[in-house]
Every structure is written in C-alpha cells, then in structure tokens.
C-alpha cells in the first residue's frame, strides 16, 4: 500500500461537514439549524444555495431534507433558544451561530437556559445542544467578526467548550459534542478552515474525548500550550526553538471546559516552564486561568513565571498590517519562550 492510499486528508471544513452528515445518518434526532446553512429558503430551484457561509453544512439539505436542515431567519435569540427547547424535549440540535461575536444577541438563551436547566430542575432535564460557532482574527473581518471569546463560556457552569485544531480532532470533537448529553459549544477557527493539513482523517466515525488535551510533541525544556489555531503557532515556534537547541513540548488543549488540568500540570512539572498561547483577549482569559492553575498547583516545580501570549486588550483591527500585529504568531511565542527558557 502506498502512503497516499494509507492516509486520507480532508479539510477542516470537510471534517465538520462529515461529522454532521454521519451523525445525521446515525441518529434521527439530530437536526441542524442556523442562518443560510442551506440557503435559498424553501425555493425548490435553489436548494443548497450556500451550505453555510463557511460551507460547513454544504450538501446536508439535499440528503436530509428541510425538516431536519433548517434555514433560520436572522434572529439568534429566537433560534438558539429554540435549540435549547428542542434539546430539552427530545432532539439533538446543532445550532450554527455564524460568528461568536453574535453571542451578544442570544447570551440569555445560552447562559440562563442551556447552562442552567439541568441544575435548576434537579437533574431531571437534559439539554443535549451543540452550538458551533466561528472564531478568530486573521481574515480581515474587523472587530465584530473576528473575536475568540471562548473564555466567556467557560465561566459558566453547565456549558462545555471545545476548540479543534485540525481536521482530525474537528471531526472527532464535533461527533462527541453532538452525542454529549450536556450543552457543548464547538469553536471553529476560521483561519484553520483555509489551511492544508497532513493529518489522517478516518472516514469511519470516531470521537475525540471532550475534556482531554493532546501532547503534539514531547520535550523537556519548555511547554507551549496552544488552543485551536494557536496550537499551529506553537508548533511553528517549537520548530524554531528546536533549531536553537531546545527540547519543546507542545500541548494542544482541545477542551476548555472541562479542562485537562492533569495534563497541563504534569507537562509543566516536567519542563518547569510554560508559555500559554491564546488568541482571546488577555483579561480573564484561558491563558490567565492556566497561569493561575500552574502558579497554585505547580509553583514548586517552576523555574520561571508562567508566560502568556494573548491578543492585546484591544478590539480586532481591520487594517491588515494592524491585524498582523494582533494575532499571536511564531515570533511572539519564541520571544516569550526565550525570556524564560534559560
């Protein structure tokens, strides 16, 4: 068998699409709804006009029909709330929130209803809702279409949050999210949707366990922790640091709630230095949370303070040179690492 036959490469978009299609085939209680996820409304001549703005849902309406693949009006509070109600009454809805910044118009439904119903009602109601949403700067989309914001949702008990970093874990996490009995938000970075990956993605269904991180490469001198797109940044930085003679461990966080604290701590206890790379705003961020975790739980192991590479405390700029300064990149990670590595 040649190498080409042994491996199967698909894009991040195809991976999400495949996870949705296979779960729709497997479980009749799965439905998908959101703005333009098919496109064309109910016009017979224009079926599947869009397949979602990122084409994540392309082709689903033709295979599963309008009863299960539903274009919604532009009313996030209405259709995210409907997703909550549908989930609480026997469906497994996947709701597409086009960009995470739009959470502002439906936050009540996510934080007051989806997150709390199971607890408030004494564990007797479950909300197996999946929200998938686009995140990330670097696409010249400016301040209201480029945020990351996952840290906000990790603040709420009752919600689970996952951030895939490649097509393999995108498919596996998406499948796991749909099957999960708790509400799960899947944060899909839009830069990843335009990149090529070498990872093998099995055609058969599989899940990536929610709550587990992945060690992308082992090393002894420093730990770099990445989230979604910044895992790729960490890998680039690791390559450069290795060229300078350092042994670098890269941890791909994958899941933010629950978070794999054990994996973080055991890696940091080994390397004694850590740089957390997080595209979200720096205040009350995942990076800040991990920094606190490491300081509290692994202080005696540390040779240097934890370092954080976040986006700045500023909205995402439109102008491309400014935006390039905004997103964490290899240079910033290498610089932060070199400050603490010796």
């Amino acid at each position, binding site marked *: 068998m040649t190498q080409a036959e042994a491996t199967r490469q698909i894009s991040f978009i195809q991976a999400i699409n495949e996870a949705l299609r296979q779960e729709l085939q497997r479980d009749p209680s799965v439905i998908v709804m959101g703005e333009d996820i098919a496109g064309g409304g109910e016009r017979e001549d224009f079926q599947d006009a869009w397949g979602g703005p990122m084409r994540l849902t392309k082709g689903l309406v033709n295979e599963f029909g309008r009863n299960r693949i539903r274009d919604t009006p532009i009313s996030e509070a209405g259709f995210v709330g409907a997703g909550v109600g549908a989930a609480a009454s026997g469906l497994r809805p996947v709701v597409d929130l086009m960009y995470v910044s739009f959470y502002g118009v439906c936050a009540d439904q996510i934080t007051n209803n989806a997150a709390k119903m199971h607890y408030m009602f*004494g564990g007797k109601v479950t909300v197996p809702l999946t929200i998938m949403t686009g995140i990330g700067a670097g696409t010249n989309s400016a301040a209201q279409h480029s945020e990351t914001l996952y840290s906000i949702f990790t603040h709420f008990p009752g919600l689970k949050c996952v951030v895939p970093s490649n097509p393999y874990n995108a498919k596996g996490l998406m499948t796991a999210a749909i099957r999960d009995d708790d509400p799960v938000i899947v944060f899909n970075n839009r830069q990843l949707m335009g990149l090529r990956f070498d990872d093998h993605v099995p055609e058969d269904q599989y899940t990536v366990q929610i709550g587990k991180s992945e060690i992308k490469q082992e090393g002894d001198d420093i730990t770099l922790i990445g989230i979604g797109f910044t895992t790729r940044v960490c890998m680039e930085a690791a390559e450069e640091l290795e060229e300078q003679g350092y042994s670098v461990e890269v941890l791909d966080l994958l899941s933010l709630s629950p978070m794999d604290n054990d994996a973080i701590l055991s890696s940091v206890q080994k390397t004694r230095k850590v740089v957390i790379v997080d595209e979200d705003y720096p205040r009350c961020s995942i990076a800040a949370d991990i920094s606190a975790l490491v300081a509290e739980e692994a202080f005696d192991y540390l040779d240097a303070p934890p370092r954080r590479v976040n986006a700045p405390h500023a909205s995402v700029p439109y102008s491309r040179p400014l935006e390039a300064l905004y997103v964490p990149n290899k240079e910033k990670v290498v610089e932060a690492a070199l400050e603490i590595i010796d």
Partner: protein
Amino acid sequence: MPYTEINRDSLLWMYETMVTIRRFEEQSRREADAGKLRGMHSSVGQEAVPTGLCAHLDENDYVLGTHRSHHHCIAKGLDLNHMMAELLGKSTGTGKGKGGTMHIADIDRGMLGANGVVGSNIPVATGVALTAKVKGTNQVSVVFFGDGASSQGVLHESMNLAGIWKLPVIFVCENNRYAEATPFEYSVAGGSISNRADGYGIPGVSVDGQSVMDMFEVGREAVARARAGDGPTLIEAQTYRYMGHFGADDPLGYRSAEEQQYYIDRDCIANCRAHILEGSFAEESELEEIDASCLAAVNEATEFANKSPFPDPEELLQDVYVSYS
C-alpha cells in the same frame, strides 16, 4: 361566548384547579411571611388563564412559564407536595430544592420550567414545538408570559419563527396590567398585544382572562389549531394580579384601590362558581366539598414540605452536568 359545550366534568375540574391554586398561593404567602422563602410572585387573581388552557392539554403536552408560575404548574398537574417542598428549598422538591419558586419544573408532567428571566422561555417553548413538528408527534407547547415580556425581542423572533415553520406553539400573554410597577398602557405601544400577531400572519386573540369559561373556549380553538398543524396562536388574556409584584410590596404605590376592587369584584373563582350554580352543573354542597378537599391538599403539601429535609451538602455540586471529566 357560548359555554354550552363546557360540560360538568370540565367545569368542576377547572373550579377545583383554580381553588387549589388560590389556596396554594395563600399558603405560599404565609410561608414567605414566616421567612421560609423570599421573592414569591403570587398568581392570585390569574388562576383562570392557565386553567382554561390546560383543560385541553394532556401530560404529553408541554407548558413553560415565568417567574410567576405556580398557577401554571398546578394547572398542568404538578404534585403539590413536591411544589411546596421546592418553595421551601427542600430535597423533596421538584428540583431537589435547587431551583426554587421561580424554577419549578417536572418534565414527567410536561412542565418544562418556570423561568426567572422575563420572556426567556418564549423561544424555548418554540423549540419544544419544533421537536413535536420534526418528530411528527401530536404534542402542543404552551408558553405563558406577562405583558412585560411582550416588549422583549424574543417574543417577536419566536412568533416569526413559529409563523414561518407553522409550529404547534401557543403564546399566552397574561396581561395583568403591570410589568412589576410599570403600567401596561405606558409600556405597550399601540395599546394591544394580541394585535401584534397580525404582523406575523398568525391569529391574535384578546380574551377575558377572568373568565375561565372564555379561556376554555379560546384555548380549545388554539390547541385544535396547533394539533391540526395550522401553526401558532397568540392569546392575550386580560387579567389582574391581586397582590404586588413579589407579594411583600404595596401595589397601592402605583395603582388605585378602586381599580383593584374592580377586578376583585370580577374574580375568576367567584364567577366560575356562579356559572356552575346558575347552570345547575353542581350543587353548592359539592362545591363546598371541593373547597374543603383543595384546602386539605394544600395543608398536606405544607406539612410534607415543612417536614422534608434540606438537601445534603453534596447536592451543591450535583447536576451541574450530566457528566464532566
């Protein structure tokens, strides 16, 4: 409205349900005054609205409510013992004491929750109706909300969504004239909530919410319409809360004693009782027996709740997730 089709069984069930609600709310108030719960939103005066509607629902249908929802729960058939225990934060409550007065739910009886955020349950109920539509069940979803919630965007988003998808959901506005202390005529532009249905191509009906017979008639039509697949209905029930917003506040700070008396004189229980007796559907002695049994049931619930234990400390961290690791 003609009441000829409302038979004796329906009338007596509705009478009993409303009296139960009234006694339950009076007792809840006493428990609150004794310091056992806070922030109790009394539904006294509004009993007819959910009662007339729920007369057409079975346990497979869903009801969703508001911060003021004890009457919705009782009309949907929830157990009084477990409701009162929830009010007192006891482990035997509908939510093990973790939800309280504003978050009573019992999915086994089709009550998918009271909700402390005004308007918040309207899209949730719309999603419940979506489940019925997608699965092809014959279930109906009913959401109750107040005149205050009629100004929330989610009502309009949900009427639009239910309108285009023809969902089996019934939007029931209990217009009790006051959003907390702000009068209806100040906060609702155009002066009508039911008229707002026109813009979404769905029927909008205004009904005397102090008449359980009128509520029954309107409810029958809306439920039949939903079950037939003809889509949602918006019902604006004109009603009145006799107490303040949360019970301990004095409503005479923002409304007159004359106005209060006008509505109290048109009390839903009194006029249902008069209708039963005038139509000879039952003897006065039968109604007195019902009155006594309602009081006894509430007294039993009160005793049950007060004797029940508080939740164990471990409950603090239970039910946050189905699983989390």
